[in-house]
């Protein structure tokens, strides 16, 4: 009988139920979309922040003090310490290896750049005063666990633009800085450099060529535009820079771009003061400081420093955005709850006659209340489910439009939405239901 009454109520007034259900579904759709986006946004934005480039820099511990002004190191070529390239695949073995999204080693030296081979007798007169940067463009690294990983300077310094193509890491190719390219002699004579032209590099006399080595002849593949000091440099594969600098299998500086969790008050404490439990928590959270610590363990003899302006700027902006979205979600939740509550209150208020009739026929207040509550709950589950589906579609659209990737549907959101739908409808109907249970049937049936 109970089920029959409920079924009858749905069948008899389909339009009313549809409207209440629609309000519910729309409200829960808002909640689902907003919740899904807010849950997902941290990870997605953290990836966007990697467009700021590396947030960690690794240098040799025993290094002499760099004399760096405006991005150019004025130390003599032979000063300072170097690090072994062979250790680099170990970076992808740390606890948070999946969070290391890119790294690129750099080795700098100075060279003489020419567009034609310099006659041997003129060699002693040339000056190796051009900056040369050796790095990886898109290096495939074999990892200790058998996999491979592709990384390079394009990912750690995304603002470097190359007109043409990056060099291949295993080829005799190079990329010239914009300003350097336009200052080469043939440019002044009106002959433009083309891709595929040969560039001759002569290493510093103290390192190499006086002992009889020939110039390094490289094919030009692109012009680099950074608006920084690199516009005056020539960029070559790391292996070639190692030969020119006389530093086989070594590098000087490593840039690492890692996905991190913004540092909170806990992470800012000195890691030496942690209790063992706190230490574990710190170690197992992708804070930038714990990733730096783990890298230092893997690369002995290094000094891993956090590039503060990138890391802290990111943390600050990310925290704000996340909070903002949670507030938008909260506001959406509030509005949806109120509107849905209002809608279910309305549907109870209007059923006074029916309630009066049921009571006149001998139903107790409890039975009537239970019956109506069951109806509302059924509506809440159906409406909430439909709303969840609607919200997921919306969140997908939103995610794909903005980040190019849809957020994963999550069971937590589903449970929250269904619970919320049930809670809101019951709360919305509670007050009118309580009033209804106090009705005297006779005046209602008389229409008073």
């Amino acid at each position: 009988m109970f089920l029959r009454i409920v079924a009858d109520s749905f069948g008899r007034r389909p339009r009313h139920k549809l409207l209440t259900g629609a309000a519910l579904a729309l409200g829960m759709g808002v909640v689902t979309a907003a919740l899904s986006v807010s849950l997902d946004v941290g990870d997605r934005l953290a990836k966007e922040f990697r467009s700021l480039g590396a947030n960690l820099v690794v240098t040799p511990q025993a290094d002499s003090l760099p004399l760096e002004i405006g991005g150019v190191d004025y130390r003599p070529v032979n000063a300072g310490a170097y690090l072994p390239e062979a250790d680099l695949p170990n970076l992808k073995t740390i606890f948070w290896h999946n969070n290391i999204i890119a790294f690129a080693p750099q080795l700098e030296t100075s060279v003489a750049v020419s567009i034609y081979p310099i006659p041997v007798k003129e060699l002693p007169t040339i000056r190796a005063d051009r900056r040369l940067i050796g790095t990886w463009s898109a290096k495939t690294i074999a990892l200790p666990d058998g996999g491979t990983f592709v990384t390079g300077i394009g990912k750690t310094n995304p603002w470097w633009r190359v007109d043409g193509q990056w060099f291949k890491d295993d080829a005799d190719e190079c990329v010239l800085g914009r300003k350097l390219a336009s200052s080469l002699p043939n440019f002044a004579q009106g002959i433009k450099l083309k891709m595929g032209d040969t560039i001759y590099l002569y290493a510093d006399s103290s390192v190499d060529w006086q002992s009889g080595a020939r110039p390094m002849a490289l094919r030009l593949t692109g012009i680099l535009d950074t608006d920084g000091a690199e516009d005056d440099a020539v960029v070559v594969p790391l292996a070639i820079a190692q030969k020119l600098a006389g530093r086989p299998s070594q590098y000087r500086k490593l840039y690492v771009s890692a996905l991190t969790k913004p540092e909170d008050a806990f992470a800012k404490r000195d890691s030496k003061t942690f209790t063992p439990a706190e230490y574990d928590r710190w170690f197992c959270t992708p804070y930038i400081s714990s990733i730096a610590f783990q890298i230092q363990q893997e690369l002995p003899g290094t000094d891993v420093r956090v590039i503060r302006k990138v890391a802290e700027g990111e943390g600050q902006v990310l925290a704000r955005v996340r909070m903002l979205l949670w507030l938008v979600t909260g506001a959406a939740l509030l509005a949806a709850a109120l509107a849905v509550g209002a809608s279910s209150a309305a549907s109870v208020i209007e059923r006074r006659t029916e309630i009066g009739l049921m009571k006149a026929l001998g139903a107790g207040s409890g039975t009537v209340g239970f019956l109506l509550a069951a109806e509302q709950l059924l509506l809440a589950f159906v409406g909430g489910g439909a709303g969840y589906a609607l919200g997921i579609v919306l969140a997908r659209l939103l995610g794909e439009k903005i980040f190019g990737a849809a957020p994963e549907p999550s069971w937590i959101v589903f449970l929250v939405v269904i619970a919320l739908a049930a809670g809101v409808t019951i709360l919305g109907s509670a007050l009118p239901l309580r009033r209804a249970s106090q009705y005297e049937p006779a005046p209602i049936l008389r229409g008073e």
Partner: protein
Amino acid sequence: MADRRATNRAMFWRIIRRLLGANRGRLFVMMLALGAGAAVTATLLNLQVDAKRRLTTEFRAFGPNVLIIPKGSSTTGSETLPESTANLIPVNLPSGRVAVSSTLYVVAGVSVPKLGKSLSAVVAGSNPLAFLIGRVLSSTPETSLNRPTPSQGQVCVAGTRVAKQMGLQQDMELVLASGDRREWCRVASFRQTGGPEDDRVEIGLRAAQRLTDLPGRISAIELIVPGTPGEIQSYIADLQRLLPDVDVRPIRQFTEGEARIYNRISGLLTATVAIVLLLTGLCVMAAMTNVAMERRMDVGLMKAIGGSMRRVLRLFLAEAALLGLAGGIIGAAAGIFLSIGLGRAVFGVAARPRLIVYPLAVALTVIVAILSAFPLRRLASIRPASVFRGEA
């Protein structure tokens, strides 16, 4: 005639009053739905406009985004520009103040008489004493850096790597030497940025100029320009026109990264707010329509005693508009407080209320209310008698 119209009007408003007052439960429900919608609309619209502006100021945390250097420099690093260049830079933008810092770099011998150690390092003379980016690792309050009192002599900030290599302690005296010129300073604090600042000693601009014997010269000017990516671009273009003798370049790592992030965040915010507003509107409308559909008895009665459908509908639309206006005003008022509170919670500063937002929120609410009363038009075809018999 005029008399009849006046009577009509009086009757119209009387019916409206009765319609509104007849069922207080229903009135409350409608106001709740409309008010909630209006409050959220006002809050989100206000926050959305404000948040985008505030976000650009958050980007300050990334430090300088524009660099001014002598033309054709960076190959030798020895060119300088006149200090007065900094005075030509326009600093008041609609989006906020531009922070300007002039620096003179010099490679100098740094030694600690107390420890007997020395090495050569880059000494950066800045005015004002450097943007304090990164972590200042000392107990000295930052303010003491900015206002060195004469009695203490010159202070300097040592990068952490300089400090480590020399074994520096707080308050130690440093001697900076370039050629036969000497400057003394006391280490006020250390700082760690992960950038080249870690390898430097920072000192006042005047001291660096004395050290290099280059009075009135600087090597570079760093700017923190607030604003949207478009505003920063046009500021740089203006600056390049204004200062043709120097090289004005964006620090692309930050200008491009900021632009990308700003576009993503503002897109996200706009889309989220739009979807929330749209669905909230629909949701309120569905709730209101539900209430309106319950009025068929009233419609039936009015038709039975001779009301034309047009007049009946006008009555109900007027009722809905009134409700929308009242709910909208209450909701918008609540929205003012909500957005002030939320703005303070997110950005630490109360969102500046945009006055245009509130009439907009009220208007939207009225429109939603009227739209949701429209399904009553479908009752035009019903016959009063069948309503009363309880058939329809």
